[in-house]
């Protein structure tokens, strides 16, 4: 059985190499990366302690009239500052291991809560000695404000560390590109090839068309993900993709297009819509043996482009677990390119899953076949 063994070995090496981009994706996917920095790390400790103390000294100098007074002011600040900062770093170090597996909001609660609560605790103690005769509401203000300041500072630091991690992660954009390419689901490739082989003898013409579609599709998959394409082209890609799925799924897949209001010259990042349609097939059509309809409506309300993709909700979960990446991937790319100007909404409506995508209408100015990189000032 030599040929079969060789094939198995081949398969394994494929599998191993398919894993690497997946790992890279997990690391770079901002939303999924753990929030709490590694506070046992010396770099993180110094990057927290030094700026805070420098800031304290500067404030002390700026708010006093002489060096002695400034030193005293700084010392009185340090009484609060050092225990809270060191205590937070110390506590977050083990807590991080526990919290980083939890949902994002719990991670945020931990990383903001620990300094906040420590500051409140320290403030209660310090207040006893420093300002023993405050009234009750003044104590509340004294203590509460310090807790809030500590939490806000923690928020700023976490934000800084996250940005830093992103900027320094090895070849950020390359990993991103690889992640996108990993999106070409191996399942899709092998099932499509199998379907073509199934047609080869009975319907060679259709097999030809399918291979042509597959070739086009892979050309698009391998293109630079930052490239902008006209909406017309993206729709062609989507249609080629759906033609292949149609072959496999037969009557189960029905597609209704509404493109009469579509601004075909609008520019958008390549492969923005195809993953959403793939998602609709994957979650709405594949898991069910019934016929299902996917509706795709593209319109242009004012100076915006609106795309709506609706698919049925299948009674059972997908045949194989998806990578849950399509929506967050598209959302993130929209964020990177359009920031607040784009919008991606999802919801369930009448037993159907609806994705609504809106982004600014920008036309290409030169010849249609010249594709350019995105220039936000254009």
């Amino acid at each position, binding site marked *: 059985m030599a040929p079969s063994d060789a094939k198995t070995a081949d398969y394994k090496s494929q599998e191993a190499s398919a894993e690497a981009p997946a790992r890279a994706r997990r690391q770079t996917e901002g939303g999924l990366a753990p929030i709490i920095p590694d506070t046992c790390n010396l770099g993180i400790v110094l990057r927290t302690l030094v700026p805070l103390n420098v800031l304290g000294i500067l404030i002390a100098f700026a708010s006093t009239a002489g060096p002695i007074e400034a030193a005293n002011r700084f010392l009185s600040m340090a009484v609060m500052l050092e225990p809270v900062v060191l205590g937070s770093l110390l506590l977050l170090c083990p807590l991080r291991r526990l919290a980083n597996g939890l949902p994002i909001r719990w991670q945020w609660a931990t990383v903001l809560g620990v300094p906040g609560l420590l500051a409140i605790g320290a403030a209660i103690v310090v207040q006893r000695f420093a300002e023993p005769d405050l009234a009750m509401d003044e104590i509340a203000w004294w203590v509460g404000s310090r807790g809030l300041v500590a939490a806000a500072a923690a928020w700023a630091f976490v934000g800084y560390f996250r940005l830093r991690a992103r900027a320094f992660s090895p070849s950020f954009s390359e990993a991103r590109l690889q992640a996108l390419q990993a999106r070409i689901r191996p399942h899709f490739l*092998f099932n499509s090839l199998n379907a073509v082989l*199934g*047609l080869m003898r009975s319907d060679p013409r259709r097999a030809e068309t399918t291979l042509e579609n597959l070739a086009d599709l892979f050309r698009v998959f391998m293109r630079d993900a930052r490239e902008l394409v006209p909406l017309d082209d993206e729709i062609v890609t989507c249609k080629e993709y759906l033609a292949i799925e149609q072959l*496999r*799924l037969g009557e189960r897949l029905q597609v209704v297009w509404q493109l009469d209001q579509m601004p075909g010259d609008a520019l958008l990042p390549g492969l923005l819509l195809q993953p959403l349609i793939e998602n609709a097939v994957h979650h709405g059509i594949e898991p069910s043996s019934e016929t299902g309809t996917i509706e795709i409506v593209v319109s242009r309300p004012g100076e915006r482009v609106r795309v709506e993709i609706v698919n049925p909700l299948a009674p059972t979960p997908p045949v194989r677990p998806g990578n849950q990446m399509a929506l967050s991937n598209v959302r993130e790319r929209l964020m990177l390119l359009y920031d607040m100007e784009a919008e991606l909404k999802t919801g369930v409506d009448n037993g159907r899953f609806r994705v609504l995508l809106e982004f600014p209408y920008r036309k290409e100015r030169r010849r249609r076949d010249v594709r350019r990189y995105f220039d936000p000032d254009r």
Partner: protein
Amino acid sequence: MSDATSILIVDDEAPARARLREVLADLSPEFPHRIVGEAANAPEALAQIESQRPQIVLMDVQMPGMTGIELARHISARAGEGDQDDPKPMPLVIFVTAFDEFAVEAFEVNALDYLLKPVRAQRLLGALKRAQTLLPAEHLEAIDQLVKATNTRRRHLSVHERGRVILVPLEQVLYLKAELKYITVRTREREFLIEESLTSLEEEFKDRFVRIHRNALVARPSIAGFERVTPTGEGEAGDPYWQVVLREVPEKLPVSRRQWSIVKGLVS
């Protein structure tokens, strides 16, 4: 029956079935066989296995509603049941998969064979020949291992009724009650009969069902409460016992004294 091996093809995609048919046709000089049917989903496959009794099933792993592995579990659950002179069919299953790290890992640790799509003729031939050498008992065990390795649980019970196969979703089952050689499966609307062992059902679905009596398993969510009953029949009045009051259906099920100590933990 001729000596040609009977084969059933199960795949939800028509071109994939066509491909297997063609490759099998190419192999017919080396491997005499007849294709006794094709099925596009789990109920069709189960009905065809019952009526056509194929010796080998070529089964896609990724199918809507039910994976091939779960389907294999349904087949193996029925094997060994039935009459001595009319045993339930236990075909040998060869899995076909496009690309599924998880399942492939599971296949590699046991005796079951699997094919990767696109399927090659020589590879298929090897699998068919090897399948014939495997004993049914080994095959059953291999399926069990696969089910365990992939953590597959049946989400339905398959009921064979007048040549049809009905898949009853597990969450609709209120209780399972053994009577003579059958097990009654009770849903809100009606009862079904299946031929499986209560013990293995208890083992497989222990998360959902609790044994209340030698002959009965009750779904935890359908327990509404317990009632104490004192038998008042003529003759000797028996000891008082407890019975389960169910949601949605009027009948009540007695709890045996032995099980009460376990079951009463559910009261609180």
